[in-house]
């Protein structure tokens, strides 16, 4: 058991490390002109020399990656225009365009992305499970057919089109304008500003959860213990929600975990169309200004999130399903 965990963890770390090396090579070692790119059109030779020295671009490739790694573990300093900028422990680089360490930029953006994704997850999980359970209870009726049919269609509509149309036609009319206020600062403004994003993300994803939980509920409602519960004379409501839902939701919860990990790195459309300053928009702005350190940092953070969530789910699964341990 312990060996399995260690092997999984080692493989996860190797994947993250490979992403680091590959993206570092892509951004700073490829036959491009990273200094010119980072420095921008109004580049002075002094500034270019500063950036080149700060990034250790003259050093051999391996040494550069070593410096970068050391920065992540122990922090490092950047010397720009004669002043020294501190870049604390998990130092993912320094954005010369924005004049701030990448870690800080990502730390600012992460709560926004987390708020969007988790709030959306609450919406799609509750709506999906509710509609799915209803459809499973009334299997074969018009209600079931409408639920399944509309979920298939909603699932097929391109997500960015939905976001775009909501942003253009619904915000400021039915929904409050999308904006981000910190939760600690003003919880009410936080919720109302993110409402549009939650509803869009939630309702589009609810479609697939309707189908998952419908299938899962149909299976669990067909079990013998449900028949036993019914024969004991328990009310139908209690049979469905106490006996059916509990067993039927376990597989659905796993999918939520995977979806959250995936969405944390894919809120690009939601954020940039609604104008919320999260991780996706940070990356997009970095693309537009060719801010390579920020691009590198966000790809790294994204892949770390994905790998870690996968690892956590795998480990949780070994507790839920003993058969996995053999693999």
């Amino acid at each position: 058991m312990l060996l399995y965990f260690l092997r999984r963890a080692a493989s996860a770390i190797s994947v993250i490390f490979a992403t680091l090396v590959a993206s570092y090579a892509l951004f700073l070692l490829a036959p491009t002109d990273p200094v010119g790119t980072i420095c921008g059109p109004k580049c002075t030779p002094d500034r270019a020399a500063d950036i080149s020295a700060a990034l250790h671009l003259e050093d051999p490739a391996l040494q550069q990656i070593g410096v970068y790694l050391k920065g992540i573990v122990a922090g490092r300093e950047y010397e720009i225009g004669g002043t020294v900028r501190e870049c604390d422990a998990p130092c993912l680089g320094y954005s010369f365009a924005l004049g701030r360490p990448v870690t800080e930029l990502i730390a600012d953006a992460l709560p926004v992305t987390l708020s969007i994704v988790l709030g959306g997850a609450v919406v799609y999980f509750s709506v999906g499970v509710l509609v799915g359970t209803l459809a499973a209870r009334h299997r074969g009726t018009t209600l079931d057919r409408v639920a399944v049919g509309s979920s298939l269609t909603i699932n097929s509509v391109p997500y960015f089109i939905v976001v775009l149309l909501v942003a253009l036609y619904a915000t400021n009319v039915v929904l409050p304008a999308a904006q981000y206020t910190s939760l600690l600062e003003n919880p009410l403004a936080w919720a109302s500003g993110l409402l549009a994003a939650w509803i869009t993300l939630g309702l589009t994803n609810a479609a697939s959860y309707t189908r998952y939980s419908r299938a899962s509920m149909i299976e669990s409602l067909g079990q013998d213990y449900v028949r036993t519960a019914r024969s004991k004379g328990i009310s139908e409501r209690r049979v469905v929600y106490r006996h059916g839902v509990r067993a039927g939701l376990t597989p659905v919860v796993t999918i939520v975990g995977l979806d959250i990990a995936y969405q944390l790195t894919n809120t690009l459309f939601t954020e940039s169309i609604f104008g919320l300053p999260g991780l996706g928009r940070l990356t997009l702005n970095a693309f537009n200004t060719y801010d390579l350190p920020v691009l590198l940092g966000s790809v790294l953070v994204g892949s770390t999130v994905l790998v870690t969530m996968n690892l956590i789910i795998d480990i949780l699964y070994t507790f839920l399903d003993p058969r996995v341990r053999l693999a």
Partner: protein
Amino acid sequence: MEPLIDDPALTGKPLSAEPGTVTKKSSSTQGKSLTQIAMARLRKDKTAMVCLSIVVFFVLIAVFAPLLAKLEGQDPTTYHMDLVDDYGFPTIGPNSEHWFGVEPRLGRDNFARWVYGARPSLIVAASATVISTLIGVVVGLVAGFARGWVDRMLSWVIDFTLSLPSLLFAIAVPAVAVSVIYGAQEGVSAEQTSDVRFYSLIFVLSFVGWANLARLIRGEVLSLREREFIQAARVLGVPTHKILFKELLPNLVAPIVVASSLALPTYIVTEAGLTVLGVGLSEPTPSWGLTISAATSYYREDPLYLWIPVLGITILVISLSLLGDAIRDAFDPRTRR
């Protein structure tokens, strides 16, 4: 694969027959391959046929775009500044000369841009599907059939690719690609950038797409390689590449067709979405994504400008996804209608 032949709906036997009698094979379906059975099922599926004709319609529009534009008498790049007022708004609506009206600001013909705009979406998505399917199938076959370090290495590469944040990666690659190919940022023309964007989009979509299929195929091969016909082929001394492509591949048609038909619409969505955000295709390529992106500033004054490409892409993607679902159902022996 036997259960398919026992399917009462296909053998033409009454569905109400007793369970025991259904297992007898009827002579009319013997010798039908899995693909043929799926095709027969698909032809009976009304939704699938409607979706297929919509998809064919869009493909024809893309193929005959120059002809359609000529029929209208316009082309997608000519500016009609005389049809745009001082504030950039078009002075004409749809008429016999400009079937969908003209663009705000530059006055290019909307219909011509719309028919040409179907092209990049379909070309990018189709090439990405073909490339990722080829890579996915080959890697999956080799990883599943080989044992030891080859399998471990390929599986690790699959895991690695799956854990890349695909959209962030899709943004990062074109940024680097332009400077790798043309050097410094200055002096790169719009056409050159647009070409690089086009090819790097195909590259990115194929690169993040192959790993899913490879993992699926590997799993299938792991179980197939223990079957008697593979053992027999090995004993007979059939060379490995022949076992892979002549013995294993024909048994993998169903997962491959299903996976690629479900992947195609997601590529179209990703392409258009990235283009709308300004990180996909770029001007002067006529593309639905670019039109949508430009039209968002005029959505109130000129809704037609926004809605033509929005409807084009939505209808195309919905039809492709529903067709993909229908193909999956047709290949799935458990589906009963």
